[in-house]
């Protein structure tokens, strides 16, 4: 036996089915572990989970082992990524190994075949017709053209052969599909190395010029530093040079600092002007939530309402509406709409405890507040949630003459004794919008890969390479027609097609 060199051996290793199976098993089994262990979660959560699965005493030890093996963030671990890379190599080399042979078949012109080969074709039909071969030929050409076969013709010694093929390229469908997987992986890698994935929680009325990366653990000193950096960036309206000067560092140093703390300079300012939630009927199930974002760049600024499934895109960054909440310890502004008895409307924005005048000589002051207020059976108000589901303001009128709880979602609480209406529009400035921020230069490559994959799969599973040979042998009163063919997949459908062709010829 011939001795193999190292390149051949590596090649053989990567083309081996065993490697494919082993990799497949490794990826599948480790993925299963990854769906059970919560990824990138607080250690405590997984320790609790492990305590339920195993003995609570050994749960922390198991956690430490899993953590060391990077199972707590396994889809980004070096070993899982290596599996994926090996899988890609396997795919490339297996495809390359088989491609030349397939390309040869695809390029090959169809030729007349000897009788023995014809006998061996998987699909064969035979009929005797009362037409001479010459006149039959024309009918055949016409009928087969309708089915997409352009017949070529050769006269052999005692018969005429007509032959054609179509869909030869469909044999490449598999390779197109394999290529698409590689394109998707390439796009994903570009996203990982050159993209940014993070978040930004912006309180109503606040603006940022940086976004936060995920998975950062800051010490208290770090936090002070981060606050400094953000403040400097915000003051400079996102301009790196100005911010660097104000901090007394060079632009390069600032860049490095930002990177160390996982801060992504956006290059523009983004503000949350307003945040709103709509609920279904009287429930607390959100129907829709949206934020009014304002983008301020050097030469332009614009605003856009974003909601789930409708993000904001600017300069390669995409801002997705992903969550919302109440900013701890924030103080806001009450926004009221006053409608007097004679229909005069007035908007008021007031601070808590700030006295304000209303037409008709009313003096009002907000003296208490609840984020989500409801009334129990006895009519007593109680707070039922921390979120701003139904904010309520306790308003004192005319220096303790009377007080009212005014609730945003309960119109019956807006009525005042004299027939005017004081509606609570919003407690503005305490909610934040949770934005997912992403810059992914690879996403278009991933989409391209997906389109190619769809095409590749279609070619692979719904098209086939069909070859057909017709032999015309002269008989006494007509001719004998023998049809034979081969197909790369779905033989039955091909057989039915040939039967249809025969029927049409006989007509």
């Amino acid at each position: 036996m011939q001795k193999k060199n190292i390149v051949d051996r590596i090649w053989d290793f990567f083309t081996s089915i065993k490697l494919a199976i082993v990799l497949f098993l490794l990826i599948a089994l480790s993925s299963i572990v990854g769906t059970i262990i919560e990824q990138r979660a607080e250690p405590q959560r997984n320790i609790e989970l492990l305590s339920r699965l195993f003995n609570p005493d050994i749960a922390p030890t198991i956690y430490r082992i899993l953590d060391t093996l990077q199972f707590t963030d396994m889809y980004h671990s070096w070993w899982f990524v290596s599996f994926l890379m090996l899988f890609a190599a396997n795919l490339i080399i297996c495809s390359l190994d088989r491609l030349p042979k397939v390309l040869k078949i695809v390029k090959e012109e169809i030729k007349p075949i000897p009788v023995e080969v014809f006998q061996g074709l998987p699909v064969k039909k035979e009929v005797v017709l009362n037409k001479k071969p010459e006149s039959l030929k024309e009918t055949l050409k016409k009928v087969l053209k309708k089915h997409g076969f352009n017949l070529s013709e050769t006269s052999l010694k005692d018969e005429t052969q007509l032959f054609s093929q179509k869909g030869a390229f469909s044999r490449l469908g598999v390779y197109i599909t394999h290529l698409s997987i590689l394109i998707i992986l390439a796009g994903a890698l570009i996203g990982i190395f050159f993209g940014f994935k993070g978040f930004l929680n912006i309180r109503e009325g606040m603006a940022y010029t940086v976004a936060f990366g995920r998975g950062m653990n800051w010490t208290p000193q770090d936090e002070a530093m981060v606050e400094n950096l953000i403040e400097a960036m915000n003051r400079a309206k996102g301009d790196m040079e100005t911010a660097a000067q104000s901090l007394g560092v060079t632009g390069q140093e600032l860049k490095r600092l930002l990177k160390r703390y996982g801060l992504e300079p956006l290059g523009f300012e983004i503000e949350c002007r307003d945040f709103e939630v709509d609920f279904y009927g009287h429930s607390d199930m959100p129907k829709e939530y949206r934020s009014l974002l304002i983008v301020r760049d050097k030469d332009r600024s614009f605003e856009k309402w974003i909601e789930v499934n409708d993000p904001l895109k600017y300069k390669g960054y995409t801002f997705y509406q992903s969550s919302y909440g109440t900013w701890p310890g924030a103080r806001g502004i009450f926004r009221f709409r006053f409608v007097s008895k004679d229909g005069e409307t007035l908007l008021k924005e007031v601070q808590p405890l700030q006295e304000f005048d209303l037409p008709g000589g009313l003096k009002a002051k907000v003296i208490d507040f609840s984020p989500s207020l409801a009334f129990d059976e006895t009519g007593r108000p109680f707070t039922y949630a921390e979120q701003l589901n139904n904010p309520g303001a306790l308003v004192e009128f005319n220096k303790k003459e009377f007080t009212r709880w005014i609730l945003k979602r309960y119109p019956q609480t807006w009525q005042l004794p004299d027939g005017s209406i004081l509606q609570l529009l919003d407690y503005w400035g305490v909610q934040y919008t949770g934005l997912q921020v992403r810059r992914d230069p690879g996403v278009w490559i991933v989409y391209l890969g997906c389109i190619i994959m769809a095409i590749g799969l279609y070619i692979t599973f719904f098209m086939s390479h069909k070859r057909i040979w017709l032999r015309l042998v002269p008989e006494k009163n007509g001719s004998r027609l023998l049809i034979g063919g081969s197909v790369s997949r779905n033989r039955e459908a091909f057989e039915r097609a040939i039967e249809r062709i025969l029927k049409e010829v006989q007509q």
Partner: protein
Amino acid sequence: MTSSEFFGIATILYILAMIAYITYLAFRNNTVGMVATTITVAGFVSQTIAFLMRWSEFYRLLEETGIIKSPLQGLIRSIPVTNLYESLIFFVWCLILAYLIIEGRYKNRSFGAFVTPIAGLALAFIELTGMSKEIQPLVPALQSNWLLAHVMMSFISYSLFAISFATAIMYLITTTERRNESGYIFWVLSAGLAIVILLSMGIDYLVFKVGRPDILFKKGYLFKATFLNENTFVSIISFIGALFIFFVLWRYGYLLKHIISTFNITPDTLDEITYKAIAIGFPVFTLGGLIFGAIWADQAWGVYWSWDPKETWSLITWFIYAFYLHSRLLRGWRGKRIAVVAVLGFVAVIFTYLGVNLLLSGLHSYGSMK
């Protein structure tokens, strides 16, 4: 009549059809076979009516809440496949449709006894887990036109995979007979597990829904009458009973081979149906389940792939079926071995679909039971 009444009729008809198909397999009486098909078609018609009615109910609800902007958008977004209950029903609908097509094409009713129990399992699961059957308003993430394509295509592929599971089991039954053969043991274990689960869900149903409707369990009735019974003795008896079923199936399972072979169905035909179901299901799953899912996730959450448990399990399922398709090309992997792969593929489908929702957390939590 309301949509749930029509659906109730369909459920009863499907269960009757299941019994009829199994009877037909056992006794080979053509009248029974005709009856089985008739019942199935009637159930399918009833379910189709129920589905369309629920669709229009859902449409009206969305119209009332005012989140739709045009009639077409409303039609696309109100398709009733937005929670676990609706999706299981849609799965059953696809499965029965696919089955009726195959029965017509191959002029053979023997598959019925293997496919209808899968529908039976899904329906019993709906009844016993106490999942919400209400029409629920859409949470913001589900208000997207991708809903229609992503969910419907996923379930079309799941039902095709279910067909391939049934025919792969039949293939293993018809190609093995020695009790120590690994293929034989494999099908006994998989089919036995399905039978045990189906039976114990049937017992749950009889005990709680028919016998003691006053008993309410917060987390559903699943296996409470048998394996998870409060009485340890009953629970132990149930496990012994299950083992007994496995034993009987193992001891006398080879008889099934002879029964099936009298139905003029060759292992090659079974292998072909398995392959065809997967060959159509796989591209549909790839495009609708994975690619459309990724595009939607990208638009809603800003990540096209986040290794969320649902995504990861879909990928595992995809890998298994990709492996099935490739292994047909390998020497020595035709026949029994790849039938085993087809069975495992469907086990992964079940886990992707139910296991992840019930056991693991993730972004797809609106598929949960509450």
